[in-house]
């Protein structure tokens, strides 16, 4: 198990850092927010990312992919986390691409994955139906009628929902209200009649939307995987997503922490640098220890996706739970240690604070993942 980056991955990190610093700094997110940008990210930026291979980073070469695996992806996501770069990378290139890769038939993969790879197709997973992550609580129905499905129901917190070309909708075609059996994944064009989309403006100024489906007609061949067997695709897709968002959160936490340490070394109070106060030194040192632990957890989870995917579930929950806690601690401390200027919008620290709270909700909060980790460990 690789817990250090190889030469290729280090190169990828340097390229990503350089590119994002120039084209997607935190100031770019501020600009998107202040301009009430209707898309919520820059399509030109996404096209450039695709040209560098980021949209296809986890895809095999057979589908036009870069085939760098999750360790490679993690490197890029961490850098995106550092600048809070808004892009379809997570929803399309991680979650959507994983769903197609793990669930799609050869025809679907050959038709769609090259479009993901070249940046021309964006995707969104329409999963959640309640305000807490609950991937088996699915009441959206799809009734089979000869050659097509008829969809009815609602979804919320659909990341990139309002901008994605296609949705992967988790529907119930059998089983009981909360059972893993009876779930089905359907590919639905976002502009299909009866798909009602409403963008939601979240604290992090990134993309999410709510959906209502009213008698939406979907061709039968749009099923991903087998009918009623969707859970066998959905669970590994969610775990890949959890690890990926943990990597992004790692980058955001590192950036907020490093900016705070820099501030402790610059800011004078009572005739001394505030970083010389032992009370603050201990708090900073405590965070450094947490960060090193979390870095190992994320690296292990990323390389498990590549090398031993059957061992992923507990490691994905461990990574998401740990990074949720780290994100909360570091952003709270960053604001407190920056003092009065930390709470102003003029400083970028607030952007990290607000992004952390949204990221903490993506694919499971701390409680969800501690509970899942305990259950998977036999408790």
């Amino acid at each position, binding site marked *: 198990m690789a817990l250090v980056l190889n030469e290729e991955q280090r190169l990828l990190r340097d390229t990503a850092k350089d590119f994002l610093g120039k084209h997607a700094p935190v100031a770019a997110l501020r600009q998107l927010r202040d301009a009430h940008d209707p898309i919520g990210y820059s399509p030109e930026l996404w096209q450039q990312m695709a040209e560098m291979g980021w949209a296809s980073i986890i895809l095999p070469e057979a589908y036009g992919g870069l085939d760098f695996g999750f360790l490679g992806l993690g490197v890029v996501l961490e850098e995106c986390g550092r600048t809070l770069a808004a892009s379809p990378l997570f929803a399309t290139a991680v979650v959507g691409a994983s769903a197609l890769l793990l669930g799609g038939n050869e025809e679907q993969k050959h038709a769609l994955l090259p479009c993901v790879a070249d940046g021309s197709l964006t995707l969104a997973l329409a999963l959640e139906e309640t305000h807490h992550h609950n991937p088996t609580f699915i009441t959206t129905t799809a009734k089979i009628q000869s050659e097509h499905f008829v969809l009815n129901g609602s979804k919320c917190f659909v990341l990139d929902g309002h901008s994605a070309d296609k949705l992967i909708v988790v529907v119930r075609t059998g089983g009981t209200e909360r059972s893993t059996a009876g779930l089905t994944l359907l590919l639905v064009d976002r502009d299909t009649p009866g798909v009602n989309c409403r*963008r939601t403006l979240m604290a992090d100024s990134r993309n999410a939307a709510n959906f209502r489906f009213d008698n939406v007609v979907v061709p039968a061949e749009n099923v991903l995987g087998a009918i009623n067997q969707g859970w066998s695709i959905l669970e590994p897709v969610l775990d890949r997503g959890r690890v990926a968002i943990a990597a992004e959160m790692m980058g955001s936490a590192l950036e907020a922490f490093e900016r705070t340490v820099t501030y402790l070394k610059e800011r004078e109070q009572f005739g001394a640098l505030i970083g010389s106060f032992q009370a*603050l030194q201990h708090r900073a040192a405590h965070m450094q220890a947490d960060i090193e632990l979390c870095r190992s957890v994320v690296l292990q989870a990323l390389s498990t996706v590549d090398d031993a995917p059957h061992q992923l579930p507990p490691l994905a929950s461990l990574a998401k739970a740990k990074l949720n806690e780290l994100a909360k601690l570091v952003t709270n401390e960053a604001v407190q240690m920056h003092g*009065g200027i930390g709470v102003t919008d003029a400083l970028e620290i607030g952007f990290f604070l607000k992004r952390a709270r949204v990221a903490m909700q993506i694919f499971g909060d701390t409680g969800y993942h501690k509970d899942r980790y305990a259950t998977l460990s036999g408790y």
Partner: protein
Amino acid sequence: MVMKYVGTEAEKAKSELLLSILGTRGVGWEGKGFTLQEIDTLRLWAMSKALTIAGGSSEIQLNLIAQKVLELPQS
């Protein structure tokens, strides 16, 4: 000193708890899709961060409690 410290830290903890309970409904910033109460909860959470900084930060209050109440020696 103790009141300021305990009161503002409790307010901050309460706001974090409310956000955890509300889940994805607790991170709405503006516009449709959230109730006014949900948006207010997030705005109050953001404001609560200033309470432990303004008017003598929590760190200053702890210094005062240590030095004035407990009469611990200064470093």
